[in-house]
């Protein structure tokens, strides 16, 4: 098996006459947390949707876990079975309780599993995501934003995936909640051996947990590498992003700990 669960070559995405991505190449290495950043409208979410097979690209090649996902006939079974997705606000099914939400992927993939085992596995994932069992019988509308994200994470982890996709996991959380979520992701990645594709705007997250950072811009990956390398990249947007006032604050905050 190759060491890159996600391989993208010459990807082209286009809406009408508006080209979002062109000649985009990207490799995600096994076992890393890759942070994806970029200004608004650079197509971060479009890229994620293309990798997940939720939209067909206009050109190029996307291989996830050794299988092509960029064709209408693509077999997405492996991808669905071995990846988990956390959408921005959790995207929990509002009519189901938290534990029922986590059971949904188990029920679809393992129809033969007994209800008790399924329930136990779901509870385990809920606890691994940092929620207490008391949250399990609640409806998503009864949870706070941070708890909804954790519940969404529990659902994403339900099938013990190798690949985890996160769309702005810390957006809308207070700094303490965001830091706790970062910590949780790091622990989970280390103990479960996850490969994480992480879209974020949060500089603190980038500094705290990302092994590599990819910057989207001008329809392609501008640069990719460790956060230090990326921050030194000579491009106006990158410089402003990593050396603006907020970036300095984030860097300063990291220094005492590292």
């Amino acid at each position, binding site marked *: 098996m190759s060491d890159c669960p996600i391989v993208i070559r010459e990807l082209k995405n286009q809406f009408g006459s508006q080209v979002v991505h062109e000649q985009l190449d990207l490799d995600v290495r096994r076992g890393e947390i890759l942070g994806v950043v970029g200004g608004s409208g650079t197509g971060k979410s479009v890229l994620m949707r293309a990798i997940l097979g939720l939209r067909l690209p206009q050109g190029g090649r996307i291989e996830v876990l050794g299988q092509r996902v960029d064709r209408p006939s693509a077999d997405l079974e492996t991808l669905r079975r071995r990846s988990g997705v956390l959408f921005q606000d959790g995207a929990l099914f509002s009519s189901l309780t938290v534990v029922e939400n986590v059971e949904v992927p188990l029920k679809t993939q393992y129809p033969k*599993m007994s209800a008790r085992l399924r329930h136990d*596995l779901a509870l385990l994932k809920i606890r691994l995501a940092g929620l207490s069992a008391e949250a399990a019988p609640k409806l998503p509308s009864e949870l706070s934003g941070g708890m909804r994200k954790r519940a969404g994470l529990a659902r994403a982890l339900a099938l*013990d995936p190798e690949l985890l996709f996160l769309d702005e996991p810390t957006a809308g959380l207070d700094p303490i909640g965001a830091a706790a979520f970062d910590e949780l992701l790091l622990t989970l990645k280390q103990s479960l051996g996850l490969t994480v594709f992480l879209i974020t705007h949060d500089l603190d997250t980038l500094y705290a947990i990302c092994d590599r950072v990819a910057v989207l811009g001008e329809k392609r990956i501008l640069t990719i590498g460790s956060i230090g390398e990326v921050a030194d990249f000579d491009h106006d947007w990158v410089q402003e992003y990593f050396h603006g006032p907020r970036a300095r604050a984030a860097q300063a905050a990291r220094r005492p700990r590292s």
Partner: protein
Amino acid sequence: MSASSPQIAADPDRPERLRLGGAWLVDQAVELDAAVARQRGPINAIDASGITRLDAAGAMLLLRLAQRLEINPERLELAEQHHALVEAVARAQTSDEGEPDLGEPSWRRLLAHVGRAVADSWGNLVQLLAFLGQTLATAVRVLPNPRLWRPTATVHHMEQTGLDALPLVALLSFLIGAVVAFLGATVLKDFGAELFVVDLVAYAFLREMGVLLTAILLAGRTASAFTAQIGTMKSREEIDAMRTLGLDPVALLVIPRLTALLIMLPLLAVFAMLAGLLGGMLVAVMTLGIPVELYISRVYESIELRHYLVGLIKAPLFALVIALVGCMEGFKVGGTAQSVGERTTSAVVQSITLVIVINALAAVFFMEIGW
């Protein structure tokens, strides 16, 4: 990828020691669960270092096996790369014990549900009266002050609620007029009194059907639209923004909608009456052989002005109810998109119910005063 199947077997050299191997993954969870449940002592050690692949589900079952055989999880012999995972799962499992209880028995929940529904309907009525008061107070403040009028918004809502609904109201009234005539013809033919079909259609549409049909249609079409419009604004905090800017949301949002509906509903009701009479006429001419002139003169003879007024006098009342319920439910929307949907449903149900109840009360009232 095909993973080797999991193995659980006693060590050939030491029978009290279990040796585990193969893949312990969620894929094998069903098989493992059954195998774990079959294991029984006496076993005093578990060698799990032969496990090739392990995930959280497998780790949970491994810990369950240890628990079942009364072996301290810390004494599990694990492969190096699996330590972190098993520790994380063990921590998560012990983080809080005790299953959440499933709550009260179903009959108590049913009773509670009924109670809540009754309390809710009473609360709704009180809220509606309060909202009526607030709207009237605002109207009194706005009316003498032309600077506060919103003619553009009012005309816009007149178009949306009135003009755009005209084809639908006319079509449905026309068809129901025809159906009423058919019904009348079926019954009255036996008595040789076909001509009275005209009376039936005219009475029905002028007194009741014209305005009632219009009101029910607008309750479905307009009350829901009002709720959705105001509810969306509420959920995006636009209403709060208005208040902080010193604008009155009732004057800005409710008064124009109420005014528009107060003007348009009676007009639509007149069209509905005409369309119903036309529908009846079509059936009378086509199937009963009543000439058009006779139909019209019969309408003139049998109908007095008061019948028309009995119908039309209810129109502003219905308009008031529909606009108030629609707007009030909009203001009740919470933060989520789901609550917009719930409130919209509630607005339609409430306004249709109120319209029909008021219509019934009015019918009794007019009968008592002899109109």
